[in-house]
């Protein structure tokens, strides 16, 4: 059965995917990376992070690559990259639309 894509990516989800663009990462590395990228503006709670990872795995955006002891590492799939690019394009469009308007 074909896996259903997510209807929308929230800011946290978008940053989790962004964090995995560079390569494999485990949960705590993702949180630290997101916090660093956003200068501490976006903090991802542990509950949220692992719900997102579980959901992304379910829809096929990411996959588990390694389990070392109690640490699991994930990487983005082609499907995940596609979802990321679609969202990025949507956001770019939003910015373009906003910039057309003088304020």
């Amino acid at each position, binding site marked *: 059965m074909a896996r259903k894509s997510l209807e929308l990516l929230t800011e946290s*989800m978008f940053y989790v995917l962004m964090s995995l663009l560079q390569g494999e990462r485990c949960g705590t590395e993702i949180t630290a990376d997101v916090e660093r990228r956003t200068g501490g503006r976006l903090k991802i709670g542990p509950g*949220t992070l692992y719900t*997102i990872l579980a959901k992304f795995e379910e829809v096929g955006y990411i996959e588990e690559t390694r389990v070392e002891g109690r640490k*699991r590492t994930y990487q983005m799939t082609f499907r995940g990259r596609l979802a990321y690019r679609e969202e990025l394009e949507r956001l770019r469009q939003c910015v373009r639309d906003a910039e057309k308007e003088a304020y």
Partner: protein
Amino acid sequence: MEEKEKKIVWRFRAVDFYRVAETESWLADMSDKGLLLEKAGTFFCSFEKTEPQKIRYRLEPRGKTDPSEEYVDACEEMGWELVDCWKSTFLIWRSTRNEAPEFHTDPIAESYAFKRLSRSMMWSSIISVIGVILIILLVVRKYLTAPIMQLVSDHELFSMILFLSFIWSDIEAIRQWISIRRLTKKLRSGEDIHERIEVKHKLNWLPDAIYLVSAIAMIAIPFYGIAQSRTGPADRFDMKVPRLCEIEEGITIEEGLTIDGVDYGNFASTSWAWMAPEQLELHEQGYVDEELWEEWHQAGREDVDMPITYRAKYYRLRFEFLAEPLIAEMKKTLTDELGIMFESVDGGDEAWYGRKENLQHLIVRSRNEVVHLRYIGPAELKDRMDILISKLQ
């Protein structure tokens, strides 16, 4: 250094765990009073007595499996400790660190976990509603045909409580599902569901307390019923009904099948029901004409007269007003099933006699006592009315 012994206290679960914000607030209130959650049970929660502390609790729907060790570690690293899992439905997390981030920072992502829980609760509600409908059909059918006979049967109270608790569980399951569905919708619209609210303890515990009492009653009632019932030879019982030897003169008692010292052709037994706390049943069998009996033994039932069989059932009802409808039901059942027509005869407050070939039935009422005699034999049962009435009085 000597380790201080933990002091554990138990509290009735004051809130419904499916009301997430209320539960989290109640647990936080308890820690404000120095009670730190240790175990969350169906009806009771245990707490460790400590100094009052400011603690945040968060409930998270449990997935299909236990949380991974990595997840638990990561949460601990970020200031959240897993306390317990409630009924395989919710993981209970707590944080004592003020600087720890909120457990969930994205309501939409959180809604995924709630949506999964909502879906599984919907299916279990549907299945249990179907189950209850089937039980209702069964129970209602029994109660429609003979409600009073059902009420005086020895398992009536048990089945009634069981039936009501099934319905109660269903209502609860649907209510909880609606509550989780509402939370899922709130999350999907970006709202926070973890705000601290004032917990009104007043009657929140009442439904659970009723359910707990019912559960205890369901277990206790059959045991009480068993404790009240006895089976053995008739002469060991206080006979509220005539013996076969008083109905049929010159009777020779014929032994029936004997198991564990009890002759199941000739025995008495008592039973208990809340609506009929005193019940006695007597079974006896025998013969009068020895030649005829021998012949019957050799040739089989079809060719000659049957031996004499006798069954008497006595009820002392809790309420007198149940007696009349009980008799009406007994008569109707015998008329419908065996085609026995009853006529009113003199005796007690009410007496009915019916006959079909050798089979005779006599039903007599005196205030809240009802006796039903079933007899196959040559004697005229209604001629023994005086003996029967003297037993009752």
